[in-house]
């Protein structure tokens, strides 16, 4: 299962949904019939997905086993989602069915595909068709994560096009309105459209995550290489600095730095980078120590290459895999850290559509409007899970030892 396949499946599902919605729109059947058609079509679709996964895992056997047992579970999920959808978004006019159909595709199909994968796998292990280690589970996990991340990146890049409203517009009379078709995630305490704010917030989260990890990995790799390669005084000094920075648990130092520098997203980037390079430096140093006694390094040095060349052209490429894995997990960590700082009022300044800030403003209205805090929280969690998935998958792919365990 490559990313291309997952991608194809999603595209197909969207096309399928849109075509169906168009037919419904043209024929203008009433709501009940159209939702039944929707449910049936989605179930059919998920059954075939499920079957495909089965065949994919079996690889040799064309007959799909126990397809029906689990398609019932899929059906139940689909019906539940559809009921929630219809309850939350009351439909007056059939043209809105298109929107709903796309909505169903967006929310339901990732869930269904993912559940299909897990269930198909487990079923096949239980039936003894495959052994546990035969499953390219981690690659799949990685692809799922990658898909979600790419989705968010696209959302972030095209934010002004995707957002249905201006995220900064304040509309106090409509504050804390629950979800409607116009505002699909409702409105916050200022009456701003939550969906549009979340779409724009993806920019902040991804920007912070990627920038901080870029800065800290570049600094950390350089210092780790130098420290491990030369050893001696440089190594001792750098590692003591690392020890001191590690003495601050988790976010504490970042909180302190942002507290004195003032709430601004760039200050958050600085504060998290100050902390971030430490783990990279330690990791790279350890790896360099393990690699630098190997023959190819000696060969490179005796052939008269400069130290810098040996470090960056010979050692670095050989130690990159754990660094990449670390970087992926770090992005997830930084996104949580940025949201935590914003949640505490120390990150993005008030009014910015940062997910953490939205969540913290939402918690003040928990009693009246829980939806204000639920949606941004879900966005944070989804993105973090996606990066963790990629990290998990990459780690097992790049390090065959852990996969066999």
């Amino acid at each position, binding site marked *: 299962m490559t990313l291309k396949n997952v991608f194809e499946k999603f595209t197909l599902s969207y096309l399928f949904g849109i075509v169906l919605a168009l037919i419904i729109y043209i024929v203008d059947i009433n709501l009940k019939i159209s939702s039944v058609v929707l449910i049936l079509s989605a179930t059919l679709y998920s059954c075939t997905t499920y079957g495909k996964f089965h065949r994919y895992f079996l690889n040799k056997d064309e007959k799909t086993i126990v397809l029906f047992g689990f398609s019932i579970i899929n059906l139940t999920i689909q019906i539940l989602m559809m009921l929630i959808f219809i309850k939350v978004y009351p439909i007056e006019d059939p043209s809105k069915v298109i929107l709903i159909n796309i909505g169903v595709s967006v929310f339901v199909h990732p869930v269904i595909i993912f559940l299909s994968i897990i269930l198909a796998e487990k079923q096949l292990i239980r039936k003894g068709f495959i052994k546990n280690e035969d499953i390219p589970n981690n690659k799949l996990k990685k692809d799922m994560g990658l898909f979600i991340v790419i989705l968010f990146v696209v959302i972030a890049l095209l934010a002004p096009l995707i957002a249905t409203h201006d995220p900064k517009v304040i509309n106090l009379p409509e504050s804390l309105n629950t979800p409607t078709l116009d505002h699909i995630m409702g409105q916050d305490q200022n009456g701003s459209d939550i969906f549009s704010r979340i779409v724009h917030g993806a920019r902040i989260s991804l920007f912070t995550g990627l920038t901080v990890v870029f800065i800290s990995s570049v600094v950390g790799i350089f210092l780790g290489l130098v420290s491990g390669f030369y050893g001696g005084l440089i190594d001792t000094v750098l590692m003591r600095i690392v020890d001191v920075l590690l*003495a601050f648990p988790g976010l504490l130092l970042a909180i302190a730095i942002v507290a004195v520098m003032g709430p601004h997203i760039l200050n958050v980037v600085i504060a998290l980078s100050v902390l971030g390079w430490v783990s990279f430096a330690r990791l790279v140093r350890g790896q360099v120590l393990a690699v630098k006694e190997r023959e190819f390094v000696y060969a490179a040095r005796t052939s008269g290459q400069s130290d810098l060349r040996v470090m960056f052209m010979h050692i670095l490429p050989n130690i990159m895999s754990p660094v990449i894995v670390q970087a992926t997990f770090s992005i997830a960590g930084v996104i949580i850290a940025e949201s935590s700082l914003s949640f505490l*009022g120390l990150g993005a300044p008030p009014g910015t559509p940062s997910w953490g800030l939205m969540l913290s403003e939402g918690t003040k209205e928990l009693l009246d409007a829980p939806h204000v805090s639920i949606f941004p*929280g879900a966005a*944070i*969690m989804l993105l973090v899970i996606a990066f963790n998935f990629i990290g998990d998958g990459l780690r097992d792919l790049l390090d065959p030892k852990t996969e066999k365990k």
Partner: protein
Amino acid sequence: MLAYITKRLILLIFVLYGVGTIVFFLIHMIPGDPVDIMLGDSAVAADKDELRKNLGLDKPVLTQYVSYLSGVVRGDLGTSIHSREKVLDEILERVPASFELMCGAMFIAILIAFPLGILSALKPYGFTDTVSMTVSFIGISMPNFWLGPILIIIFAIELDWLPANERGGFFNLILPAITLGTAMAAMLSRMIRSSLLEVLGEDFIKNARARGLSEKKVVLKHAMRNSMIPVITIIGLQVGVLLSGAIITEAIFDWPGLGSLLLDGINERNYPLVQGCILFIASIYVFVNLITDIMYAYADPRVRLQ
């Protein structure tokens, strides 16, 4: 063992010195005049001068540095700006609440993690394993500032079973402790599972089974004891996560602990208090790490030689 502890203690002094230095220079990172920021633009010049003198900001940086460090060594963390109380007293006042929250979170984490981890390891890739590992994956990815509000919505607002504000009796502790403890439970159960799985494949387990010991005895006595070593480390390291996670949890639940003291200090621009809190929390973390390392070295003698 003694040599190991001595080595660690020397390192500890060095680390504490570094922490003190960073905390000292925090106040010099403030853009502009720190006194202006602390008192606001409208403050009287005489007040500003007094504060500047009290904080020692009129002296050269090196003198300030030496007097700050010597104060810290003597347990003098300075004076809080508005209340004019000793910073250390204000901190110590909040310690019981924080301690209570941490113990609660740790208790919840252990209560969840051990059964889940052990059950998962006994039947790897079975139903329980799948469910518990999925739950723990979600637990790791779920930020506690989202879990907290959701718990409040479900248990305090919708069901009205548990109180969700401030410190009080046992029931007030439950929701904050779950919020803080979930991430640790998730991490810990994965660790227990993998560690126990590894040990269960060792020869001495086969030997114990061959001797006809009951499965219960094999797992609980022979395997568990040997799989605990990495688990101890994780528990120790997670204390740090609890310490910083507590800041957010305390903010959600209005818990009068160290974390909310720190946040209050930041909001009031009471920098001596902020410095004191950070120094205090970091020192606790350093000491907990030291104790963890020593316990680890005690449990696994190979560590001492590294």
